[in-house]
């Protein structure tokens, strides 16, 4: 029997079997950020251990740093400065690369890793952060770990890992115009539920997936953790090789030639078997918006807020009632009738150049509704510079958006800046849990297009209303 691409990578990294279905797996790259990374490095050091191979470790400042212009080590988050200083000091001591504030390579960890060619096809990469699964979009095995595992990886260049089960999600056909990878991600979660892939390594396959460009694939894989998956993966192809060529840490010269040859062997054999196989059709996917407090509570933007009977196969009565009350929704009313207080474009899900371009296409020549606070946070300093070079910042600013420095910003609330209590936010992020973006804030997840359109209209809106507008 053939092997899945995942099994090929796994086997090539298996240093030894430990028993109980646990293997000792070689780790090629370790990423850290200031929220969890400094702590892991410090704790490692306190136990008298060292980083085994500092060259393979990279750290960035993304979670806690301010994204307001003119930022410094001081943060709106109480004690934030301590995390920043601790990470800086510990990185220096350990001899690892740090992309600090004001470094052109700084940015959200899952945005900069592909951008710098740190994640590579066939490589293993770990980071103490649950959205590390994003990076599987480039054909590597990338997954989020806990703090004590991060110490283990740093000290030994390996991890003890229970081999996950495998699951293939095939999406054939084409996505309709105006439907993006974000809509596809929300659609999949609403179809198979937020526990639909627990314990599984997902391989996304099918013509609707291979048609996505690398940045859109990153968006799709980003939300695998919202399915409960171990991680997600897409087999590398020409688009990935082209994307990586010439990037800072991507192989060069002879190494590039050798790498390319090896990368071409990373695919799932025709007779390989998955523990689970799911088939979906790309043409069934509409623009989606989450209505509740779990990403699985998502629906077509054009639909009405569901009654319990419509979602009873997925939601318990309890979680449905709680979500409706928390989000202050009226079942049976069109979702589009709900006015918004804020709009946010950013996060490791949707803050790359292509995301900003598509949002700018909607915003050009338009104004954000007067009662809406609108914020755009580029995913990396490099994305910000590229966007500015083509004038996107001006489009956002003219429309009434704030244009910020890169970072996680208001994707999550850590005690600093937040949207207000009971404010309704349309957001291009990945988590709509209670109080995720601030105490009692109501978050609706959507694509950057939907966020931009809703910001203009002042209520949740379908970006396809602007159909006929020329697109880039």
């Amino acid at each position: 029997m053939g092997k899945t691409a995942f099994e090929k990578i796994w086997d090539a990294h298996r240093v030894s079997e430990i028993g109980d279905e646990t293997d000792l797996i070689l780790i090629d790259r370790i990423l850290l950020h200031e929220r969890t990374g400094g702590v892991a490095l410090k704790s490692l050091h306190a136990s008298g251990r060292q980083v085994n191979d500092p060259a393979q470790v990279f750290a960035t400042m993304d979670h806690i740093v301010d994204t307001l212009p003119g930022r410094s080590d001081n943060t709106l988050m109480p004690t934030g400065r301590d995390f920043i200083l601790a990470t800086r000091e510990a990185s220096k001591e350990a001899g690892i690369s740090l992309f600090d504030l004001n470094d052109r390579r700084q940015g959200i960890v899952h945005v900069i890793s592909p951008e710098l060619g740190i994640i590579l096809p066939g490589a293993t990469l770990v980071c103490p952060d649950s959205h590390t699964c994003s990076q599987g979009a480039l054909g590597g095995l990338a997954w989020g770990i806990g703090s004590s595992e991060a110490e283990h990886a740093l000290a030994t260049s390996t991890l003890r890992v229970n081999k996950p089960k495998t699951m293939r999600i095939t999406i054939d056909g084409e996505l309709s115009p105006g439907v993006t990878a974000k809509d596809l991600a929300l659609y999949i979660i609403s179809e198979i539920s937020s526990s639909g892939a627990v314990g599984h390594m997902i391989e996304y396959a099918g013509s609707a997936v291979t048609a996505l460009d690398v940045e859109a694939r990153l968006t799709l894989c980003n939300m695998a953790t919202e399915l409960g998956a171990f991680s997600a993966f897409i087999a590398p192809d020409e688009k990935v090789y082209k994307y990586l060529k010439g990037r800072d840490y991507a192989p060069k010269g002879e190494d590039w030639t050798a790498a390319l040859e090896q990368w071409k062997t990373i695919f799932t054999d025709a007779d390989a078997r998955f523990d689970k196989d799911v088939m979906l059709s790309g043409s069934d996917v509409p623009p989606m918006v989450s209505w509740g407090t779990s990403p699985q509570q998502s629906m077509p933007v054009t639909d009405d807020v569901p009654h319990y009977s419509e979602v009873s196969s997925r939601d318990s009565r309890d979680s449905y009632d709680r979500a409706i009350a928390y989000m202050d929704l009226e079942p049976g009313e069109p979702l589009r009738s709900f006015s918004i207080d804020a709009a946010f474009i950013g996060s490791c899900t949707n803050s790359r150049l292509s995301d900003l371009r598509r949002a700018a296409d909607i915003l050009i020549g338009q104004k954000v509704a007067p009662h809406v606070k609108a914020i755009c946070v580029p995913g990396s300093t490099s994305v910000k510079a590229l966007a500015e070079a083509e004038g996107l910042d001006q489009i956002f600013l003219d429309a009434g958006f704030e244009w910020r420095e890169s970072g996680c910003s208001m994707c999550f609330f850590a005690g600093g800046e937040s949207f207000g209590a009971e404010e309704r936010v349309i957001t291009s992020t990945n988590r709509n849990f209670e109080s995720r973006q601030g105490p009692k804030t109501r978050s609706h997840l959507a694509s950057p297009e939907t966020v931009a359109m809703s910001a203009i209209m002042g209520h949740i809106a379908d970006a396809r209303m602007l159909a006929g507008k020329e697109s880039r």
Partner: protein
Amino acid sequence: MKPLKTVRSLAVPLIVDNIDTDIIIPSREMKSVSKTGLSDGLFAGWRYTAVGSREINPDFVLNDAKYADAEILLSGDNMGCGSSREHAAWALAEYGFRVVIARSFNPIFRGNCIRNGILPVKLSPEPIAKAEGPITVNLEAMTITAEAGDSWSFELETEAREMLLEGLDPIDLTLKRAADIAAFREADRARRPWIYNLKAG
């Protein structure tokens, strides 16, 4: 971590099935990101009279004065089910438990116990609960003996046993294979030089 060779103590009979990690340590009791300061919240929902209170519930077995120094806990089926949070094992260890004997364990909880210096023993708890006085758990011999002479034997994987006997954590254990890892990386470097030639261009 403290090596565990033999433990002699009374066994607390908390023989209930499906004790989940939220019962062991309710999430409201996990106030900091640190691994310590959790023992106070151990079994908080049962140990105290009300949520958030610290008034002792006299009916809860752990509050029986004779078990104040007990290091062995007896439990039922599916011990440690629920979420994978490691806090449950941290709280038990900090409270002073070194051995948990249960009819069966949730696998993740069981792994977390071993990682944190707690010996999980899969045995039927009722006969052990009948023993008078302290019992002795001997990990080297993998036996449990009661003062009156009753004895039971149990099993444990070699690596877990080694970790507990020597008081090692998983990093120590993996570092014992450092030579294997280095050799593997050396061979891998020949196969995939680009993974190791990390010079930014």
